[in-house]
């Protein structure tokens, strides 16, 4: 087993270290950071915006670049959080607590270096974890029938709302709404056009990039404009990047704990970066000897959540690559990108396209290395980008969204649709309906219908097969249990506590 892992990683390195793929990885990481660093732009919007760029590439290069964009954007978000206390995405909210405090004390360089080192450490560990755990998981998944897949998707969707914050009822509603949106288009089995209103552009369904850019791009812009306030960039020039030896010692244990927590939570469907960083910060606050300084610029308070969010972000690739199940909107976008490249996500990717799978895994480590090597010297550039005022920024974002959406199918129809989804996204935010579960439902909708169809066809219409097959029954039981625990008052309080850490 061990030997084959080295052989696999060797193959991966070979693929990822080819000059072309290295270049795309670098391009992805740099673009991801550059856009992620811009205030108010999270990884989802960044990936959605840059997705059209990858369409012309071969699948391996496209996925490597997208992965690079992802952790680049993640890292960029932390930079923004530290420098101007304006986290671009929810997972760096906790980084801002102590990171920004450090910046106020003139230790911005140290905070950024801590974030970079902790992320790199977590990235290295998680790459190994992915290599270790993916093959056995995929092996199990290969035995899955349609019933198991259907239940797995139910579990994934349920978990994604249980672990998200906000109203459970609304989140489930958003999932169902997303599933319905995913149905729009031609039903290939019956050759019936559904919810197309006679519009020919809708026959192929709604492109998920249009939804993502509308809801996460335009919707986010409107939200940001609403609370357009003064932003103060404290740090004009970042110096003092080097960490002293005792500081390195101080961040070692938190980074390790953060990595462990992040990689476990990231594997869970619905987990990923945000939950990981919140949980890691909460844990660190409990166990750290320096706990009293948390919130006042404790370096441990930067290391732990940063390690956790990077670990969580990367280990969320595991269910995506082995099961074909997205655990968060970013993975939903990755799955969408794979489908557009003609790859059916699922356990067979590993056996049918080993170069693609292992190339992607190896590129994650390379990408993380690039982040550390590049970002610390480039910090001056990022500081300058952070300080671009938002009212100069968002029209440019809109331009790239509009042109990006147009380039999907070279039709202006998609731009109109994106505008509608932008309004919808803003509305959802106002009503505290998380748009992320909707995107998951949207991607999974057609797959779920197909698996349900096959399940019921095999069982001659008996839905009980979902609970009589052991694996499927277990997954549904876990889903039910997860729902119940959230509804129980004691645990609900706990869950709220975890998410209000930023007060």
């Amino acid at each position, binding site marked *: 087993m061990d030997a084959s892992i080295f052989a696999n990683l060797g193959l991966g390195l070979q693929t990822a270290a080819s000059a072309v793929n290295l270049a795309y990885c670098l391009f992805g990481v740099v673009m991801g950071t550059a856009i992620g660093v811009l205030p108010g732009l999270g990884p989802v919007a960044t990936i959605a915006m840059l997705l059209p760029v990858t369409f012309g590439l071969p699948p391996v290069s496209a996925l490597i670049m997208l992965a690079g964009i992802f952790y680049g954007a993640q890292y960029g978000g932390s930079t923004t959080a530290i420098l101007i206390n304006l986290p671009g995405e929810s997972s760096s909210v906790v980084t801002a607590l102590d990171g920004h405090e450090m910046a106020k004390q003139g230790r911005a360089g140290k905070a950024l270096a801590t974030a970079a080192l902790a992320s790199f450490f977590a990235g290295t560990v998680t790459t190994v974890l992915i290599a270790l755990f993916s093959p056995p998981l995929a092996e199990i998944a290969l035995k899955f029938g349609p019933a198991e897949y259907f239940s797995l998707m139910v579990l994934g969707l349920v978990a994604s709302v249980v672990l998200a914050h906000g109203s459970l009822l609304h989140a489930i*509603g958003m999932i169902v709404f997303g599933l319905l949106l995913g149905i729009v288009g031609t039903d290939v089995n019956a050759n019936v056009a559904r919810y197309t209103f006679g519009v020919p552009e809708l026959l192929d369904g709604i492109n998920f990039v249009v939804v993502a850019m509308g809801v996460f791009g335009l919707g986010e812009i409107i939200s940001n404009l609403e609370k357009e306030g003064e932003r103060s960039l404290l740090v004009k020039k970042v110096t003092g990047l080097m960490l002293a030896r005792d500081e390195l010692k101080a961040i070692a244990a938190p980074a390790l704990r953060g990595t462990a927590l992040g990689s476990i939570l990231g594997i869970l469907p619905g987990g990923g970066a945000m939950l990981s960083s919140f949980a890691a910060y909460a844990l660190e606050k409990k166990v750290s000897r320096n706990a009293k300084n948390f919130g006042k610029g404790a370096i441990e308070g930067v290391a732990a959540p940063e390690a956790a969010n990077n670990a969580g972000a990367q280990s969320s690739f595991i269910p995506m690559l082995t099961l074909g199940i997205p655990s968060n909107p970013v993975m939903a976008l990755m799955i969408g990108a794979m489908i557009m490249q003609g790859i059916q996500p699922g356990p067979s990717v590993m056996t049918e396209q080993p170069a693609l799978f292992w190339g992607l895994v190896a590129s994650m480590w390379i990408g993380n290395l690039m982040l550390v090597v590049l970002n610390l010297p480039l910090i001056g550039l990022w500081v300058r980008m952070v300080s671009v005022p938002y009212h100069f920024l968002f029209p440019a974002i809109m331009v790239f969204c*509009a*042109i990006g959406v147009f380039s999907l199918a070279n039709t202006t129809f998609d731009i109109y649709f994106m505008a509608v989804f932008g309004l919808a996204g803003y509305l959802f935010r106002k009503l505290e309906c998380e748009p992320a579960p909707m995107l998951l439902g949207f991607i999974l909708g057609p797959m779920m219908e197909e698996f349900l169809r096959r399940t019921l066809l095999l069982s001659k219409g008996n839905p009980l097969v979902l609970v009589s097959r052991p694996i499927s029954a277990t997954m549904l039981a876990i889903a039910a249990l997860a729902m119940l625990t959230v509804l129980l008052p004691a645990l609900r309080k706990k869950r709220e506590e975890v998410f209000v850490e930023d007060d």
Partner: protein
Amino acid sequence: MVVPCASGARPQTPHVSATRRAAGAAHDPYRNRLLDASVPAVHYGTARFVASDRAGSVIAARLCRRNREGERVSVKIKSQKDFWTGCLYLVFGAAAYWIARDYPVGTASRMGAGYFPSLLSGLLMLIGALSLLRSLTRRGAPLNGFAWRKAGIVFAATVAFAFLLERAGLLIALAVLILGSASASAKFRLEWRAILAAIGLIAFCALVFVKGLSLPMPLFGSWFES
């Protein structure tokens, strides 16, 4: 805000009327609007919110319903977010259900095109109803005012870009999109720096997307063709 009630009707549950459309929907314009399936439901969702916003941002919404003796009593909505989300889910669910009637449902062992959509829209209506119920029983954070002007500008600028792209061409469409959307920001001033930035961005897009990536976007559209 007071939701207008047609004599004893319960506007918060449009799905009830979806099944009894023939019975007395005719005199209730609001219900008719909801059920007109030929138009996407999206408009209704937003249209109603616009109306609610105008009535005031802090809404003390009251519903009319009849008690056992047949007298009108009003029920206080305790959570506006739950209320409007419930409405939204109900409207979408009902519309989706209504449209899916035309698709063959099939049997469980041979699912037709309408099977899954009917299932889902039923579920969405159920969730909507639960949310409405909860809005009457559990207090929630009030709904703060909507930034309709900003949302409208962003929406309009995007739509204008789509409309102008092939007619007026990329250069003009971009100028409209950039300067139009920028006006949504309170900090935007039409000064030389802004115009210079806009020109730079337009030039960048023309060079990269049209010359470089050769996307089929005309620099000057059909309006300029003689």
